């Protein structure tokens, strides 16, 4: 059986180092399989979060060779195994232990966002009528599995640590799914511009590249929201038009 070396980040917030583990690998294995084998055979105390092993729960997010990835969906035969494979926790969030990070900041961000606010029901039985194509428009945003890889790769969070001023690509996707919803009536543009810091995004598209659900985060969520913010706050003609029409 072929052998490969995994350079795994071991430790907590106070003390940590990379530790090399050599283990056997076989065809069809993913990085999570290798980490589990190392955990079973060499490092019983190695912490790794996982759940579905099918790329659907978003638990096993980490960084493989410097790229944010789902460990369960990263196949070993796509990696150069002649050199050590680096496996690290996500860098944008506080580390708990080894490969496990504390992603609770994301849930707090979500709690603060204006919730879905539908118009009054269209029918007496309390239901709404929507056209399929109007829903199709936002359907891709609903594929999000909250793996937070996009948050991890975003340099505004990862590098500049602007967690208090910037909600990150995941929540722009969420905001877009609400703002563009055919029956939502809420306006979130003021928050997007100020508290949520959409202006910090400089459209590098790193989030789109890492999304395991292939959501076109930048082009279909962030830029359209930026344009709506321009309508409301920066475009003098639109502002003038609003003054006259009101």
């Amino acid at each position, binding site marked *: 059986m072929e052998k490969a070396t995994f*350079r795994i*980040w071991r430790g907590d917030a106070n*003390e*940590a*180092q*990379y*530790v*090399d583990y050599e283990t056997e690998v076989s065809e069809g294995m993913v990085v999570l399989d290798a980490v589990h084998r190392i955990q079973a055979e060499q490092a019983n105390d190695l912490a790794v979060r996982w759940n579905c092993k099918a790329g659907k729960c978003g638990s096993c997010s980490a*960084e493989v*060779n*410097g*790229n*944010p990835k789902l460990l369960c969906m990263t196949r070993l035969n796509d990696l*150069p195994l002649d*050199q050590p494979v*680096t496996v*690290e*926790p996500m*860098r944008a969030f506080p*580390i708990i232990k080894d490969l496990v990070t504390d992603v609770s900041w994301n849930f707090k961000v979500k709690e603060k966002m204006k919730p879905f606010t539908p118009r009054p029901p269209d029918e007496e039985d309390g239901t709404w009528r929507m*056209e399929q*194509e*109007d829903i199709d*428009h936002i359907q891709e945003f609903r594929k999000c599995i909250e793996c937070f890889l996009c948050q991890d*790769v975003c*340099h*505004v969070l*990862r*590098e*500049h*640590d*602007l967690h208090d*001023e910037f909600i990150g690509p995941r929540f722009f996707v969420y905001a877009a799914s609400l703002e*563009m*919803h*055919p029956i*939502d009536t809420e306006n979130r543009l003021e928050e997007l511009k100020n508290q949520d*810091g959409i*202006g*910090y*995004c*400089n*459209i*590098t*598209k*790193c989030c789109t*590249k*890492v999304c395991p659900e292939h959501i076109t985060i*930048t*082009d279909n969520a962030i*830029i*359209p929201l*930026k*344009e*709506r913010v*321009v*309508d409301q706050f*920066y*475009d003098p003609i639109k502002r003038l038009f609003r003054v006259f029409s009101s």
Partner: protein
Amino acid sequence: MQQPELTLTEHRPFQTQRKDTWWVQPMAVFLGLGLFIVYATFRVFEGNHFIHGPYLTPFYSPLLFIPKHFPELFGPESDTVRHALNHSVFRSTMPSWIPGIITPAVLILWAPLGFRFTCYYYRGAYYKAFWADPPSCTVSEPRKGYRGEHSFPLVVQNIHRYFLYVAIVIVGILAYDVWKALWFDVNGETKFGIGIGTIILAGNVVLLGGYTFGCHSLRHLVGGVVDLLSKAPIRRNMYNCISCLNQRHMLWAWMSLCWVGLSDFYVRTIAVTGWQDYITF
């Protein structure tokens, strides 16, 4: 085996665990855009060799005035001056109070350059390639502070839609230039024909059109702003067309940039050498 201790939050410039050649793409963007900027700057201030027969280079279109020195250089009745006046919006030479450094291109090139400079695609690309902000995804930056487009100066990028309006007019003008590039002087007569230059200029309009009409701001203004597109079928169809171009916006951006440079280079080359390109009559 244990490795030396490191911390996840300490960022050294250009530090990364990536093992691929992450620097190739930003380097290619740097060289591509850098080359274009150098060439365009040279051409803008050259103030000459921008017209040959009915071909006008896109760098000098729309031609508001012809350069002051043209009638003297080529003769007031020359073909070059006649064609230049025919293209000129005001049908006259540059007013004498305008300093010599202001060529006809200086008067108009702010528009296409501003359009590209504020384009969402180019922004993301040159922030990486020219400002290392970040150098590439998950590669550490050389600076600590960051304001992005949240505040001045980069908040000004939100002006993009105004450059778009001008760019749409310019695409129309360039299409009109192609029409003009179909009519050649042959022994004192005007004849219809298609030259290599005509094809090059037409290609420029197609690629520039693909780029301009795939703009994110246009996509927003036409349909993105509407949540109930099903109730606006014309806007929906336009939105779908624009979205289709928008998906390849990066490709259109590069193809149109290269082609506009090539168009200018072609017109300059035949203007300098006096070559007659192949024309079908």
